[in-house]
């Protein structure tokens, strides 16, 4: 038995003409398969229409705002990581290109000579620096050394604390409610 176009009409969203309606009714009376389809489809359709919307657990907006803060922190960390990787990559590429350029434009012996000459120039510069600076340093009273060391050490420690604090802040610390409020986060709805 052919089930078309009855099957099509059973599932149709559009209103049927009286003739189509009558044809479906007659077919469904005779055809068990289509009758079953029609009944089940109507039951399912009714169920879908009466089901309504399912709501999330209370506090969805608060959870979203917390996750937004976390995602922002994650994005910042990723950006910092990308910047460091980019700078390292740039330095490596520059080094590789410089080495290739130098090796291809000069002979190996010239290249080695250039490296040794550069090293020698650094040593000479260091020796000359010592000759000029050391006599001056020896004439400075000991109290100035003490002050200079204190300032240097103090500054280094301060910078180390700031650096460590910044890493902790961006990596581990969860935002406080005051900060969340400044970012437009509402207190927990629960």
């Amino acid at each position, binding site marked *: 038995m052919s089930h078309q176009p009855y099957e099509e009409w059973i599932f149709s969203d559009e209103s049927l003409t009286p003739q189509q309606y009558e044809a479906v009714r007659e077919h469904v009376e005779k055809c068990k398969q289509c009758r079953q389809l029609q009944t089940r489809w109507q*039951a399912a359709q009714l169920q879908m229409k009466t089901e309504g919307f399912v709501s999330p657990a209370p506090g969805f907006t608060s959870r979203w*705002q917390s996750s937004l803060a976390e995602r922002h922190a994650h994005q910042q960390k990723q950006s910092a990581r990308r910047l460091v990787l980019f700078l390292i990559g740039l330095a490596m590429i520059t080094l590789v290109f410089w080495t290739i350029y130098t090796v291809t434009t000069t002979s190996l012996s010239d290249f080695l000579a250039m490296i040794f000459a550069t090293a020698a120039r650094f040593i000479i510069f260091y020796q000359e620096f010592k000759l000029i600076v050391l006599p001056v340093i020896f004439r400075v009273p000991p109290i100035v050394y003490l002050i200079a060391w204190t300032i240097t050490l103090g500054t280094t420690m301060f910078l180390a604390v700031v650096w460590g604090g910044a890493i902790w802040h961006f990596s581990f610390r969860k935002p406080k409610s005051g900060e969340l409020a400044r*970012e437009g986060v509402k207190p927990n709805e629960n």
Partner: protein
Amino acid sequence: MNNDQPEWLKQALRGDQEAFGLLVDTYQRPVYNLCYRMLGDTGEAEDAAQETFWRAYQHGSRYDFDRPFMTWLLAIAAHYCIDQQRKKHLPSFSIDLMVEEMLPDPTPGPEKSTSKKEEANLLQKVLAQLKSEDRAVIILRYWYEMSEDEIAQTLSTTTSAVKSRLHRARLMIAQQYKVPEAILASGGNSYEPSTL
């Protein structure tokens, strides 16, 4: 630009976090419902709904104010859920065995609410058997009362593809949604046809 959109919505899509909180408050239910119907699990639905709002927050500048906002948001949710389903490759299992367990109890009275819950579970399980694209079409049609054109726009497909998916999905639901034998025997008179 469509001036019917509320000002807070425009602010939210420009990245104002306070306004976006209001947007989440307003649209959480329809977005969560779509994710739940698509994924069938409350935890996954929560994650998917959160991800939907995050994507909307990130790409707010791409929103075309001439389109209904809800359609845009539901499009993000539907595409995300379809992708999740594709990644998961759900193991298939016997629908017959499953629906036998979930067969609704025709007994009226105090157990009616349990029976209703079972029917809801049964519907959700039948939905889970559909292809994710077909399921999305059915959900948008019957829960969100979208037209075929609106569904096509939401799922970035053609109206004819939506029609064909709707037909396939309806047929599958009708084959798998097992109603009590008493109703079947009576020719389904307990259910008022909507179109006949």
